[in-house]
């Protein structure tokens, strides 16, 4: 099947599952808000007694790559995990303040996390394909959320694998176990799995830290391609990676956002001494 038909089929499927477009008449104050995918305002988060995040206020812009940098234990991953409520399984985790994804209040206990996680995909540090076939891995998410017939499902799987730049390598062995792939292929498979549910936001928690340089490059190219359609938030320890592939960068230190701005500014003339020390590699 050629790529353009794939694109149309998938777009049709995705439009069916997409949230209803916001009504025209209250678009006056919405238009400004919709520039941002996620907004945090004075967010504090705790694990039990330990406060992991202090007064976080930032806006993640739509259809751009935002990088979170900072030394280990500074709260980057904690914030990322609040974005799709992965912290729900940690019983001691709780937060105050304001955190919104569009119209959804992310701190509200009654928020439908199942639908939220469909709209906010996550890729983890270590590739974690399910012990199933390659096809089943990608089809897992769509099967949870959508009612598709066989050909639609296989189109969606192909589209996702193409999007994640792993289709050429796996197209002849879709029924082979996913655990037989190399580390880099597994990670791209996980990205394909995450975008198959049609998310708006893609969270990446150090996606390249366990990969070789070639696979890292492949994934960075991939992010560059995906930024048109998705809002990407990436946590990374690799300064070069952050400077190469992100539009905006937030520097975290001890649970606070020290500086948040365009990547160029953070890396060339940061306003804070701490940021400068960190991006120059003097600590962390």
């Amino acid at each position, binding site marked *: 099947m050629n790529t353009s038909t794939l694109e149309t089929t998938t777009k049709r499927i995705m439009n069916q599952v997409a949230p209803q477009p916001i009504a025209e008449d209250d678009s006056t104050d919405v238009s400004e808000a919709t520039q941002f995918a996620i907004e945090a305002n004075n967010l504090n988060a705790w694990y039990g007694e330990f406060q992991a995040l202090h007064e976080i206020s930032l806006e993640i812009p739509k259809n751009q790559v935002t990088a979170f940098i900072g030394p280990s234990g500074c709260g980057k991953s904690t914030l990322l995990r609040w974005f*799709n409520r*992965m912290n729900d*399984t940690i*019983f001691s985790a709780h937060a105050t303040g304001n955190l919104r994804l569009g119209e959804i209040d992310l701190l509200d206990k009654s928020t439908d*996390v*199942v*639908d*939220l*996680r*469909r709209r906010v*995909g*996550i890729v*983890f540090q*270590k590739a*974690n*394909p*399910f*012990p*199933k076939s390659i096809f089943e891995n990608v089809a*897992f*998410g769509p099967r*949870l*959320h959508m009612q598709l017939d066989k050909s639609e499902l296989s189109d969606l799987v192909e589209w996702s694998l193409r999007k994640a730049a792993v289709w050429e390598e796996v197209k002849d062995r879709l029924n082979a*176990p996913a*655990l*037989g792939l190399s580390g880099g292929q597994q990670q791209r498979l*996980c990205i394909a*799995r*995450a975008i198959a*549910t049609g998310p708006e936001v893609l969270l990446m928690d150090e996606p390249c830290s366990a990969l070789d340089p070639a696979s890292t490059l492949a994934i960075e190219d991939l992010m560059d391609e995906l930024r048109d359609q998705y809002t990407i938030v990436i946590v990374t320890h690799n300064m070069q990676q952050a400077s190469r592939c992100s539009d905006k960068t937030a520097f975290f230190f001890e649970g606070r956002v020290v500086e948040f701005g365009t990547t160029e500014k953070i890396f060339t003339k940061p306003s804070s001494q701490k940021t400068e020390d960190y991006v120059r590699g003097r600590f962390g």
Partner: protein
Amino acid sequence: MSQAPQEHDRLKGQEESSQQGQEQQRRLRNSVGRMLLDHYFRLACIGIACISVVVLVFLIGSIITQGVPSLSWTLLSGTPEPEPSEAGAWPAIAGTIWVCTICALITLPIGIGTAVLIEEFKPRSRWANRIFSVIQLNISNLAGVPSVVYGILGLTAFVSMFGLVGSLKRGESSFEIGAIYYDQFTNLASDPFMSMGVEDAKERYFLAPVISPSDPPTVAKSGMEMFEYQGDQKIPVKIEVLDPFGELPSDPDALSLAIAADTVPGRISEKSWYYFSLPFGRGVLAGSLTLMLVILPVIIISSQEALRSVPSSLRDGARGLGATPWQVVWNITLPAAAPGILTGSILAMSRAIGETAPILIIAGIVYIRNAPQHLMDSYTVLPLQIYNWTSRPQEEFHAIAAAGIVVLLIILLSFNAIAVILRQRMQNKVR
């Protein structure tokens, strides 16, 4: 083994030469002693492994040499006759299969479900947490309780149900389904005291249906319709009631339809395959439930271990795609843990097959001629039958007992083989 002294000499030589080394090397620990220890430790491990293999080979060899010669079709298909050459173990084999199958069907869902609850749905509140840890502690302790204790528990809880739901005596159970009761009458010809004048008539038995098992005995009247078995079919017949000391009809056919006026019927029952009663009585179901008590802790603990060994990154991955807790368990965690759960279940079921003490208490040593027909039927199992045979004075029975052990081992191994094949298949699908 013969290499050991040479190896020792070689290493000893090294030790001496290294002792002549320089002063600064004295501060390093000598590696030769450690290497020798390593060598001897390896030999010791091989020796210990050999001992267990030799014991196993001896055990299996002795059972096979004693048991295989008396293995015969009679043993597999026959009933436990008092004559050694005719004795068979079919009721016991069937009983073992019945009890273990039902036990597996009940235990596996409960055991795996409990493990999933404890491992995958950990409670949030402090109180629920405390209750969970008490349950966990209890499960661990119950795994070590001698099985005979469970036998006594099963006797009270399942066989008589604490006496709460009626008595075990026939017709006094509080709930019954699938049983039809009859009063059985014998005709004149089958009366041992009525041999005069009825020689030509054949012996017949007539069944009068009874509505409730506690009804008083049926009173037979002339012209009454009763049933009679002819082959497998129940045929209605009209009976005659006669004074046995009066005049008897001369026609043998008419005479065979006659029953004496003072005949007292015997109450019998016919039970269909779905017969069910409360309390359970000493039947297959009570035995299976008791075995469930024995193996449930083992299955729960091994399933918990298997679930715990599933990496949490898989759960995170599924949850991150928007799977509900149930979808995570059903689609990801359980399939990934299935090989481990299956291994634990195999071990537990093997234990259930060989378990004797609780069954001895539940079923007792009874003479059973038929394979169980329904869940409440009385039964015996192979280990009990073997125990019964070994306790008899005749030498021939001991040989039959050995053959019975071979049969038991074959059932056990085939049970395990099925599970191993299943597990292999599951793992192949994944890797």
